């Protein structure tokens, strides 16, 4: 068999890493459709994300220990299992089966990612280059996931995400053509605690950007998944741009700290949006994307630098990142849900005040108030935001148009405000990442 050129092998291995790590966020934009199809609670729905990330976090280190002995075999088998589980996800008969299959995807995906790191070291013949490519593929995959998921969901349905994953994963198997990877004999050293702790906190913070922001766009501001997917491509573009200039920022800890500050600042800005609307998310997304590119590349390089057995330390970084995502989801979901309920009550009061204070005929107010409540009740039953403007839009009177705008304004305020605390808590997690970054700045001399 003709061996594959190193460049092609590197590209295919990068593709497999990006594909697996995109999977942690790729179904975010599909969640509303999954919710409707399987008729589950919002809090239960989060398990479609949690199960994958939890399995990935738990399996990463054991899979890495196996992968450094048999990288080719582990990569091959786990890629096939990942592809099969992906395909099965598309045909899940129940939500429970989907969650179970997502966990299988997570376990197999962990093995794919850590084995790919070992194979990248072989292909590049340099651990540092392999670590850089591996980190970049992971950053691009994680940040581009929501956008791809949104586009596929709208064009072909949520199942298409998983159907498409299977052949793409299998194509990456071509990377194994003619590979003769040698096992790594020496024992792995202890993991870089500070860099991995910072990765955990940064990843926890990024949950708000990669998951909550898209929920705000689709469920809150009622964008179509395709449009929302395009909006959030700002983050991966900023991340890629940042990684191109990242090499000039030394030492590594200052790059990581700059990234954490940009992520925290971008999230704080999302927590304090002055108005509802996509345009207000652009600058925060640029900051978060750039921060993601700087922080994840620097922290991953720090975690792997000077360590023998890259796959094992790669496993630790994957475990840290996805533990952070799981903790972020578990921390933010109850905050977000409680705020959503509180704001629903406040929005109802504010909307009622808008009706009472409006210029429409006084005797019409009772009927309009009742119509608004019917629209709210219907939307609540369907798990969506009500279209309050539609309640009064059929009237041509300017007083009704003003009332429609006032009702929509109160709704936008309530929905946007419901996400505020979650973004601010995430910003705090981003700032907390500075503690291990600063404490661990002397751990490695890069």
């Amino acid at each position, binding site marked *: 068999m003709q061996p594959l050129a190193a460049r092609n092998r590197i590209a295919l291995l990068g593709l497999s890493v990006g594909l697996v790590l995109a999977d942690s966020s790729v179904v975010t934009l599909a969640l509303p459709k999954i919710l409707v199809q399987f008729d589950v609670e919002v809090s239960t729905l989060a398990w479609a994300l949690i199960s994958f990330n939890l399995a990935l976090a738990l399996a990463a280190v054991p899979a890495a220990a196996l992968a450094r002995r048999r990288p080719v075999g582990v990569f091959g088998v786990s890629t096939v299992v990942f592809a099969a589980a992906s395909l099965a996800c598309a045909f899940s008969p129940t939500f429970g089966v989907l969650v179970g299959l997502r966990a299988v995807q997570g376990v197999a995906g962990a093995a794919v990612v850590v084995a790919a790191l070992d194979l990248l070291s072989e292909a590049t013949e340099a651990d540092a280059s392999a670590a850089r490519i591996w980190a970049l593929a992971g950053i691009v995959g994680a940040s581009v996931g929501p956008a791809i998921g949104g586009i596929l969901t709208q064009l072909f349905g949520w199942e298409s995400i998983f159907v498409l994953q299977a052949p793409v994963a299998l194509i990456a198997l071509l990377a194994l053509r003619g590979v003769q990877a040698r096992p790594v004999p020496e024992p792995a050293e202890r993991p870089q605690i500070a860099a991995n702790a910072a990765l955990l906190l940064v990843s926890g913070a990024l949950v708000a950007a990669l998951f909550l922001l898209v929920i705000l766009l689709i469920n809150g501001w009622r964008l179509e998944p395709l449009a929302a997917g395009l909006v959030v491509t700002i983050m991966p573009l900023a991340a890629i741009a940042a990684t191109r200039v990242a090499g000039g920022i030394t030492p590594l800890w200052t790059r990581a700290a700059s990234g954490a500050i940009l992520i925290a600042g971008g999230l*704080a800005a999302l927590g304090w949006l002055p*108005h509802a609307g996509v345009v207000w998310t652009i600058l925060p997304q640029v900051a978060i994307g750039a921060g993601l590119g700087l922080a994840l590349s620097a922290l991953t390089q720090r975690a792997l630098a000077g360590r023998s057995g890259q796959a094992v330390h790669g496993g630790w970084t994957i475990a840290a990142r996805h533990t952070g995502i799981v903790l972020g989801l578990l921390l933010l979901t109850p905050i977000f849900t409680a705020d959503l309920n509180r704001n629903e009550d406040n929005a109802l009061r504010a909307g009622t005040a808008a009706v009472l204070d409006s210029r429409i005929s006084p005797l019409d107010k009772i*009927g309009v108030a009742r119509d608004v409540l019917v629209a709210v009740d219907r939307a609540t039953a369907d798990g969506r935001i009500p279209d309050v403007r539609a309640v009064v839009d059929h009237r041509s009177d300017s007083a009704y148009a003003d009332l429609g705008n006032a009702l929509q304004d109160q709704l936008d305020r309530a929905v*946007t405000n419901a996400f505020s605390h979650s973004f601010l808590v995430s910003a705090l997690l981003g700032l907390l990442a500075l503690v291990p970054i600063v404490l661990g700045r002397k751990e490695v001399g890069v």
Partner: protein
Amino acid sequence: MRAIAYSVAAMLVLVGLYLALGGASYAPAKVADPCVKRSWRGPQGFEAVAEQIVLSALDGAACQLHVSREDMVLALADSGRREQFIREHDISNARLESLVRNGLKRSIGDAQNAGALNATVAGVLRGVVGNLPIDELLDLLQRLRGL
């Protein structure tokens, strides 16, 4: 270190700008305190007078129950919401109706004193408010818009 300084400066500008544009206060509007007396606005026409009477009555009832006027409107909007309101505030349906009815009678008196209603109309309204169940009263008001 320069990268850190640039990042801090950029984020202070971004967050400062969003806060200056009202980011910290972008939330649903606060509703008015029902216990603070609202001035009689001198409404023109029966509809406007009726509206002011109803709103004033709701303010009075809301003040006694320590809730907002809007909470009272929502409680009266349909039977499901009313039951929830009664449960949450540990009052009976009869007590709720009595508070609204007394509030309406008081505000009819205020309207009469302000010269917005003559004695005959005020007397008729008092009779209607005193005898019709609240649900039927609201339905009657809604049907009036069709006349």
